[in-house]
């Protein structure tokens, strides 16, 4: 552990009955102090199971979880790392009889069914699809899955922000001006949300929004629940409060006096989860309830030059708000620009630079390559270049659909082959791609050659390798033949045994074959992660649908595959970030990197000309600002609001990134973007100003 400042020491050593509010920018040592406080509590003999470690999102718990799992940590019961949503769910489960009737569930004597994002989407699709045919949402252009997810998003926001879900459309509508036809879609969205909520109540289904509402409105006010929670947890550490929603803050506000000690941490530059309902204002208001407020200001991370760059960029983006930072742009040695005409050249140059940095002794885990959006083509092109230089890499895209992942495709093809009763007949190409990904070292040419000979889609059979003519066996190579035989035998054996739930099937084939040496997932971390997410998604789907009695075991697996292929289940995965695992260069969207909350030495920023740094996601059915708590119902959301919030958002993003950067930022600037067009977005213009100023 680095040397701690007196302020940090004060936080860590504060008495066991103190309530502290710690604020400061990223990199000022807040979480370090929080983690040390946790160890301190344990060292002082506080039982681990009386400590609640709260964050708005699981990935933010990583530094704490690491310490909790480290061998030095004393025993004494496990600390509970949780999100408020997680607590809500557990309480709904635990106190179901109490919740069910009062919340209006139709079958209080039956157990609750908790929905994941995917299963919620699934039920939403059931409800909305017939309405589309009767003319709902006619005036908007949106694909169906995003339509469903925005309706769900509205419900979640109503729960996180704390307004009745029946007010969604009136709030959106009152802030809207312009084409009246557009207003109808808000009413449509409201109607769908209402129907969905009713359906959930009728069938004991609890999506995220209902879990939170039932907990906040029904359970939390009850003494028995409150007693249970307050007696269980005596100490609170709540990090990244600024990324949580107002409703969570309300609950913490009421809960806070009950704790023996509490440490609330607030990142001054944060608020990146705004589009999910996070509210920095209600988080900031929590400080009033604490005995003491400690502000950490100095960065442990940023070099002076990076700090200058951060100041200069912020001034360029928000000139009116930062008039006092004159002269901060004098030194921007920390900024390097990689320029090229065409995009592929840029990626070449980035890969070269990464290689040189590694050669100069910077560990791979200290380098990240960021872009506002990480298209698959970009990820592929870049990581391929890194691989060619034998540079380890990992990517992280929480919003990516499993359906677009080749490795989940391969697993689904395997599932279809192992379950002939489903009657899903993968075409030869899919079979070849599956083999290519499953068997290590198998190239496409041999995979196709092999598939053509052994695979009969009509009969869904895989012939044994021995049946192939010797000269062709030789072409395919005996090594591949052996692996193929192992895989084939496994499938044959499985077919003759009892059918497993799909997630068990994946686990089994993964554990017994695919993860073994010689197979494709053996040392392919990215694929392993996708596979794990797939298993998780299938499992949750199965658990949710099992209980409602939708179909049988075999049918479920088939239904899952078809829904995934239709895109109705937009199964996306969020994986915890584990920096211990691997020393690899991270390739990620900028916001995902922020949510990992860890500093690095070098950052590459690709596509500074993209509008993605500036504009918020266009979502015709929902609105992060209009639905927020401090939005007044008589206001109209105008262009000036849009520009102001976009600028603030970009400034926050840029400063957040730089506060997590120790030494240098490389700006990867291709004159023509990935799509062949010139880009000149606001971030690029801001850099332009900074550079001009420096040259003056």
């Amino acid at each position, binding site marked *: 552990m680095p040397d701690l400042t007196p302020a940090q020491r004060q936080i860590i050593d504060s008495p066991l009955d103190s309530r502290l509010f710690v604020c400061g920018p990223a990199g000022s040592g807040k979480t370090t102090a929080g983690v040390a406080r946790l160890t301190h509590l344990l060292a002082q003999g506080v039982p681990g199971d009386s400590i609640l470690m709260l964050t708005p999102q699981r990935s933010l718990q990583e530094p704490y979880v690491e310490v909790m799992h480290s061998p030095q940590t004393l025993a004494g019961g496990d600390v509970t790392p949780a999100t408020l949503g997680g607590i809500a769910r557990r309480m709904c489960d635990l106190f179901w009889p109490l919740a069910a009737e009062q919340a209006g569930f139709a079958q209080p004597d039956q157990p609750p069914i908790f929905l994941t994002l995917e299963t919620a989407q699934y039920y939403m699709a059931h409800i909305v699809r017939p309405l589309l045919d009767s003319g709902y*949402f*006619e*005036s*908007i*252009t*949106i*694909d*169906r899955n*995003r339509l469903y997810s925005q309706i769900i998003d509205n419900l979640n926001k109503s729960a996180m922000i704390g307004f009745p879900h029946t007010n969604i459309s009136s709030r959106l509508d009152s802030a809207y*001006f*312009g*084409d009246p*036809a*557009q207003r109808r*879609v808000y009413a449509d969205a409201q109607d769908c949300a209402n129907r969905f909520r009713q359906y959930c109540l009728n069938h004991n289904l609890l999506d995220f929004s209902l879990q939170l509402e039932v907990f906040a409105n029904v359970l939390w006010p009850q003494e028995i629940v409150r007693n249970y929670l307050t007696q269980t947890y005596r100490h609170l550490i709540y990090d990244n409060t600024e990324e949580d929603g107002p409703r969570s803050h309300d609950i913490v506000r009421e809960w806070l006096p009950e704790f023996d000690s509490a440490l609330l941490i607030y990142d001054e530059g944060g608020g990146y989860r705004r589009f999910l309902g996070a509210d920095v204002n209600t988080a900031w208001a929590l400080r009033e309830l604490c005995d003491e407020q400690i502000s950490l200001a100095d960065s442990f991370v940023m070099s002076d030059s990076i700090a200058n760059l951060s100041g200069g960029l912020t001034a360029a983006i928000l000139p009116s708000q930062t008039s006092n930072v004159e002269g901060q742009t004098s030194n921007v040695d920390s900024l390097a620009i990689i320029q090229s005409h*065409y*995009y*592929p050249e840029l990626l070449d140059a980035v890969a070269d630079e990464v290689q040189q940095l590694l050669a100069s002794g910077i560990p791979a885990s200290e380098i990240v390559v960021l872009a506002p959006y990480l*298209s*698959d*083509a970009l990820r*592929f*092109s870049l990581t*391929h270049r890194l691989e*060619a230089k034998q540079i380890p890499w990992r990517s992280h895209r929480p919003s990516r659909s499993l359906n*677009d992942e*080749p490795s989940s*495709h*391969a697993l689904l093809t395997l599932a279809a082959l192992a379950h002939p009763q489903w009657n899903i007949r993968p*075409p030869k*190409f*899919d079979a070849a*791609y599956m083999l*290519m*990904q499953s068997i290590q070292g198998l*190239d*496409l*040419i*041999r995979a*196709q*050659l092999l598939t053509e000979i052994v695979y009969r889609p009509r009969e869904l059979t895989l012939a044994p390798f021995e049946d192939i003519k010797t000269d062709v066996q030789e*072409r395919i*190579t005996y090594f591949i033949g052996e692996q193929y035989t192992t895989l084939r035998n496994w499938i044959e054996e499985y077919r003759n045994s009892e059918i497993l739930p799909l997630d068990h099937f994946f686990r089994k084939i993964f554990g017994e074959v695919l993860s073994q040496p010689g197979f494709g997932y053996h040392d392919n971390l990215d694929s392993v992660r996708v596979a794990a997410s797939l298993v998780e998604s299938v499992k949750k789907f199965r658990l949710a649908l099992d209980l409602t009695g939708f179909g049988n075991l075999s049918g479920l697996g088939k239904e899952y595959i078809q829904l995934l*292929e239709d895109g109705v289940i937009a199964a996306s995965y969020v994986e915890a970030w584990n920096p211990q695992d691997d020393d690899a260069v991270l390739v990620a969207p900028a916001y995902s990197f922020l949510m990992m909350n860890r500093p690095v030495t070098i950052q590459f920023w690709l596509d500074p000309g993209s*509008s993605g740094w500036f*504009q918020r*996601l*266009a*979502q*015709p059915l929902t609105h992060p600002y209009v639905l927020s708590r401090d939005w007044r119902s008589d206001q109209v959301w*105008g*262009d*000036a609001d*849009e520009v102001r919030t976009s600028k603030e958002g970009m400034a926050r993003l840029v400063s957040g990134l730089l506060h997590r950067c120790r030494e240098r930022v490389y700006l990867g600037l291709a004159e023509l973007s*990935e*799509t*062949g*067009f010139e880009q000149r977005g606001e971030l690029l*213009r801001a850099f*332009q100003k900074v550079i001009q100023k420096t040259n003056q």
Partner: protein
Amino acid sequence: MNTFSPRPSQQNILRYTGGRLGIAAVPGAGKTHILSALAAQIIHDNQLQDGQEVLIVTLVNSAVDNFEARIKRLFDNPLQALYKYRVRTLHGLAHDIVREKPSRVGLEERFSIIDEREAGFIRRESVNAWLASHSLDDYLDPALDHSKLDWVKRQQLPDLLDSLANAFIRSSKDRLLTPESLRAKLDSSFAPLPLAELGCSIYADYQRALAYRGAVDFDDLIRLALTLLESDEEFLDRLRFRYPFILEDEAQDSSLSQQRILSLLSSGRGDPAPTDGGNWIRVGDPNQAIFETFTTADPELLREFIRNNNHADMPESGRSQPSILASANHLIDWVMNSHPDPNVRTALSVPHIVPVPEGDPQQNPPDNPESIRFVSRKFTPEEELESVAKSVKSYLDSFAETPIGEQPTIAVLAPRNQRGVDVVTALRQKGIEPIELISSTSETRAAAGSLSHLLAYLADPQSARKLSKAYEVWRRDWRVNMSLRGQSPRQPPNDGEIASQSALAMTLQSELLATTSNVLRRLVYVEKFIAPSQADDWLSTIGESEPQQVIEELIAFRKIVQAWLKAVILPIDQLMLTLAQDVFTAASDLALAHKLALVLRGAADDHADWRLPELTSELAVIAKNERRFIGFSSDDSGFDPERHRGKVVVTTMHKAKGLEWDRVYMMSVNNYDFPSNMPSDRFISEKWFVRSGLNLEAEALAQLTALESTGEYDGYEEGAATMQSRLGYVKERLRLFYVGITRAKKDLIVTWNSGRQGDATPSLAMSELMGWWEGK
């Protein structure tokens, strides 16, 4: 600063300081030059604040590149102009606008834009669905007998209805009418408007299909951009600040809604006619307003703008020899003063074209009245083909010994695509391989073709033949170099050494390419080359017999193929982009690849069972130009006639716009393709199987107009629109004739034929010019 020596009229325009200015420019007047110079001048004079840009709007993507290059050349240091100007097509501009705030007009973050071809597919489906459940019998000629009726319904109606639907939908969008608002109007209409009903129903179905795909078409972009600007004043103000100067090229081709966008942006009230508003310069030639398919553009809009605002002419042109200019000018005079139908006299307008003054860098070719021929002889269509092909052949033969850089450029212009195809066939029979510029450009086809070769290999990776083809694609730049070699008119004459060195390098490249490609084709087991096992690398077996260069070439190629083979599991759009990034360098090719990737992704999403072979053939369809595929703009003609010296280019008169050749043949100038609204004229849009000779497309649009109007007396009257549309057609054809004539620099040969029925006559305009010419 680079030299640009303006002509007198251009000097006048460069005195511009602000406000609205309308400029009528003649063919070859140098519109791009003057607009580039104006933009540079505004930037030089520091008229822009921080965050402001000169907005240059043009028609096609190729013009965008042209402008960019020109403006850059006007600065010693390109950084001086960095982010100071923006060149966009109108659709590109609309996309920029919508892209900033999609959700305000009901679009989701990742909305996609479908090209005309895909739009055509979708519309066709809607048309077929309509036909399956409705009948158009009320509009068919009752005298049709049963067998004919069946044939008409099967063979003719779908096409007719498709073009009607296209016109109706485009026109509705130009008027900002949605299917819902149309529906409401129809429901409250007193008079029955069956064609508007039909149009509305197909339009609604078409829009639903687009929404389902999360996509919009090109017209939606314009419509939504305009809706956005009209409904969001703060946003509009922000854009007005950003674009303090708007320079518009090819202004005669802008539709009403496109003009409203520019008018709003330039601080006007959305009405292009009044003189108020900011700095908006419109340059165009109303005489060149020609349209191949239905459009909502109208040259009268530009004329009105010119009349109502400060205006200037650009009459000087150095393109054609004086006798050709005289013919074009006479055509203007005759139309304006003496056309037998007074209603079409507005088809053309002055200024006349005048030759450039002495000392101008682009001097008119010397006068030569002999090289203009209006061939009076009556040909059958076949005879006309034969005669033109023969003439082309003997003309080409006469240059057999001339160095290629001094050979002439030649074009044969036909009024319609089909006639162009016939010309190509006729030329081939004479052993002449023409350059086709009939639909999408050869560049589009080449790029799509390249990618389709790569996909074809990936679908069948064991094939040595396809691997070899993929190699040729990978080295396509070498091939492009070779095909250009010797054809460039700009070979440095005094730099013989450099020229011969580069020629040598090219020869080496070409040999290496041929050898490597040959070696690959002979490969037996592809995997032993691409994915060799350690002991069994095919390369080591040929190391002895092939030169080191070839081995190195193969190693480099192998590396790239290995990456491709891994990429094959990616979704198709990503695969395409990955391939494109490896084989293309030209911005246009990359942009095109992106469009193709979107099209293929759309196809893959719509057809879940499609794999590489199906997707490859889809791409091959585009590559072979069976259907029109276009880039982001409404046209995609980055065509340079200079690159085809000594060859003959065959194209339609419409596609020839903006281009020029030393010798031009204009064919089929008869009263069918160029009618004059005389009693004996027949009209292509009035179908023989439709009752009362109605032009259904025109009638449908008239019903749409009636629906929109509130006036008591402007109801719909059947047949009036058919007559009115004749006038529009006659006028457009007169301008087309004018455009054809002004394509020629030195030689112009005009012929006509007697038509399929043998009763066609020369067009009145041609007869007039013939008579006038003989009189001289």
